[in-house]
């Protein structure tokens, strides 16, 4: 009888496969024609050396709309021109009909697999498909929703990931924990395409361990159609009127950090008294939080399950594209700045595949996909140059058909993905707090769980 059960199971699976293959595949967009990236470059990027917490200030200003900010000494005032990039097709395409470009340069690889540990909603599906097809390496990925979760899993051991995506302060922590290996820059020609504004930041001088991925801010997001009094500062979120309507990132440092800002303290304080006060203040806020969401907050906002709260650049942008009444407001106390990076674990079993992945996915004719999938502030000048004025038909974040050039214009003109210089300068960057980390962790446990 058991044999019969297995037989029937196989029959069931057979029926399933027939059913699925009968439907065949639908082509979503006609294959885009290969285009040469325009030789035009990005307008000047103003840089400021890290004098205070607000380090890594950037601006990508299109020549017409915003004037470039004044630069300070020790940084080149000249605009960054990415090297000319020739895009070639590989001849392979994804299930969606996207023609995968050829890796440029093609890196020698012997590994057959690659293990990635990445954020949810952060890597376009085509990255995986194209890489697998073009290099013949199969990708295994697991997702996480917070830096702490990622760090905990890696520290505990028993995992064999190659690449992870730590945010700035977590890079410092992981270097300190001895979890990361130094990157061999000779194997990463892709560095030439990146805007130097995002390189050489205080948490990883010389980019010994990391490669920038995406950049952004934490600020207030509001559905102005559902909320009467629009908040203007972090402190405004404590308004009892907002009770039960808010979404916050499930992120300990961000939430505790913004609370510290409302008290006038530093986001990286290690002072026990200040932290105790922050805990008390935060305890007044949490009953009003309906949901902690680091996975897909824009879905919550669009569906109306929440009406306002705190979130990241990309999520706010996607929400606004779907519902124009949703706005991203930079609070008076200052935003929290962050930058996500690729980093390689010391125990990475497939380092060569990892280098291939980094060079391939960040090359200009691939990385532009971040604009149409997960629009955060993009450090890849080459990709932006490729996207500008590009008439290739693409689908935007809402799934509507448009051109890549149009997507670029939306990106560059939006104050969400392209924040004003003043906002960046007034922003705060989170840093590793070393021995005070358990304090923050404990506050987070108590405040989050104390209902």
């Amino acid at each position, binding site marked *: *009888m*058991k044999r*019969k*059960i*297995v037989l*029937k*199971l196989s*029959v*069931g*699976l057979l*029926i*399933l496969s027939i*059913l*699925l*293959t009968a*439907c*065949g*595949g*639908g*082509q*979503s967009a006609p294959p885009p024609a290969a285009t040469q990236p325009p030789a035009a470059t990005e307008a000047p990027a103003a840089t400021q050396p890290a004098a205070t917490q607000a380090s890594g200030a950037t601006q990508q200003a299109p020549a017409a709309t915003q004037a470039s900010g004044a630069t300070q000494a020790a940084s080149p005032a000249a605009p960054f021109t990415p090297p000319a990039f020739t895009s070639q097709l590989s001849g392979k395409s994804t*299930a969606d009909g996207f023609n995968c470009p050829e890796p440029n340069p093609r890196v020698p690889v012997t590994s057959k*697999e690659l*293990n*990635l*540990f990445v954020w*949810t*909603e952060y890597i376009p599906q085509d990255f995986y498909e194209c890489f697998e097809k073009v290099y013949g390496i*199969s*990708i*295994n*990925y*697991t*997702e996480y*929703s917070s830096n702490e979760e990622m760090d905990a899993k890696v520290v*505990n*051991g*028993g*995992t*064999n*990931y190659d690449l992870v995506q730590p945010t700035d302060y977590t890079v410092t922590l992981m270097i300190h924990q001895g979890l990361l290996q130094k990157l061999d820059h000779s194997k990463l020609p892709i560095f030439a395409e990146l805007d130097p504004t995002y390189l050489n930041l205080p948490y990883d001088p010389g980019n010994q361990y990391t490669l920038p991925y995406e950049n952004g801010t934490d600020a207030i997001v509001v559905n102005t159609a559902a909320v009467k009094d629009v908040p203007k500062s972090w402190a405004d979120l404590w308004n009892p009127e907002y009770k039960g309507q808010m979404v916050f990132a499930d992120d300990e440092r961000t939430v505790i950090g913004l609370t510290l800002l409302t008290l006038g303290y530093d986001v990286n304080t290690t002072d026990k008294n200040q932290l105790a006060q922050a805990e008390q203040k935060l305890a007044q806020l949490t009953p009003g939080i309906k949901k902690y969401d680091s*996975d*897909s907050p824009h*879905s919550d906002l*669009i*569906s109306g399950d929440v009406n306002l709260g705190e979130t990241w650049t990309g999520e706010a942008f996607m929400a606004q594209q*779907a519902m124009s009444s949703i706005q991203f407001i930079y609070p008076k106390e200052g935003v929290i700045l962050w930058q996500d990076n690729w980093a390689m674990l010391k*125990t990475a*079993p*497939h380092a060569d595949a990892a280098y291939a992945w980094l060079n391939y996915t960040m090359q200009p004719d691939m990385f532009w996909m971040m604009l149409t999938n997960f629009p955060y502030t993009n450090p890849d000048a080459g990709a932006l140059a490729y996207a500008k004025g590009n008439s290739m038909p693409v*689908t935007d974040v*809402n*799934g*509507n*058909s448009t051109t890549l050039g149009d997507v670029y214009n939306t990106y560059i003109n939006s104050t969400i993905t392209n924040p004003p210089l003043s906002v960046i300068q007034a922003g705060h960057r989170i840093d590793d707090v070393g021995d005070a980390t358990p304090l923050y962790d404990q506050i987070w446990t108590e405040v989050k769980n104390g209902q």
Partner: protein
Amino acid sequence: MNPYRRSPLIIASTLLVFFFLYAPIVVLILFSFNASRISPLFTGVITKFGSYQLVNGNVLQSPCGPFHWFCDLSKNTEVLSAARNTLFVAITSTIVSTIIGTMAALALQRYNFRLRTFSQVSLYIPIVIPEVVMGITILVMFSQLFSYLNTSLHLVGDAQLSLGLWTVILAHISFMIPFVTLVVQARLQGLDKSYEEAAMDLGANEWVTFQRVTFPMILPGVLAGALLAFTLSIDDFIITFFTNGPGSPTLPIYVFGLLRRVITPQLNALTTVWILIVLIVVFFTQRLESRQR
């Protein structure tokens, strides 16, 4: 009086509970035909066949028509690999745990040995403790063990010990053994010993008796235990969550991962297909069972 006549109260509450049981399933299946890509609203069924057209988040046209999300699902290689993993884990752990569990049941029921009480008690523990405790403790053990072995044996690269399908299988076997043992033990308890005694009187040694008499008699119990084990393994989430590694998700883990992203009706299509398969399999199994009777 008709012993099968029930009071209207019972009938009404039965219908209500059936409705409660099935309403979510019906909703799931219905929404697998939803035109809207992400909205939880049902905006209608896709009626037009043609090239893919998406306007304002609604699919207006699709090559597969109303079955658009099923076609979308068929392009999803990850689902099939997750399904493969799930089946592989379930089948392997079922076979191993059934054999070990049956042996344990025989030992506990028929023999007296020193570690008897200890075994009985330790077999009850996985049943009465929450899965999260078991998952956590196993994770703690594997993490410490792997860290220690990897550094002391200088294992690097792919040779490193790490969490993967095999750790999931080991964990599944561990929590399935008690259930199988329980089922087979119950069956053994109700067994009439006279058959075995007769066989032995007729000159059969113990091994032959077991093969020809005992085992066929407990077979229904063994199979019931195997089926229970299989069900537990396929549906397991918590223990798998703590013991699996990159790139080898089982279906429940994969579905949970999907839930954390933008949820499209592709997930509903997956549910519908799953239910269909289950219906077919169970239907055939029932037919076979009734035919055997």
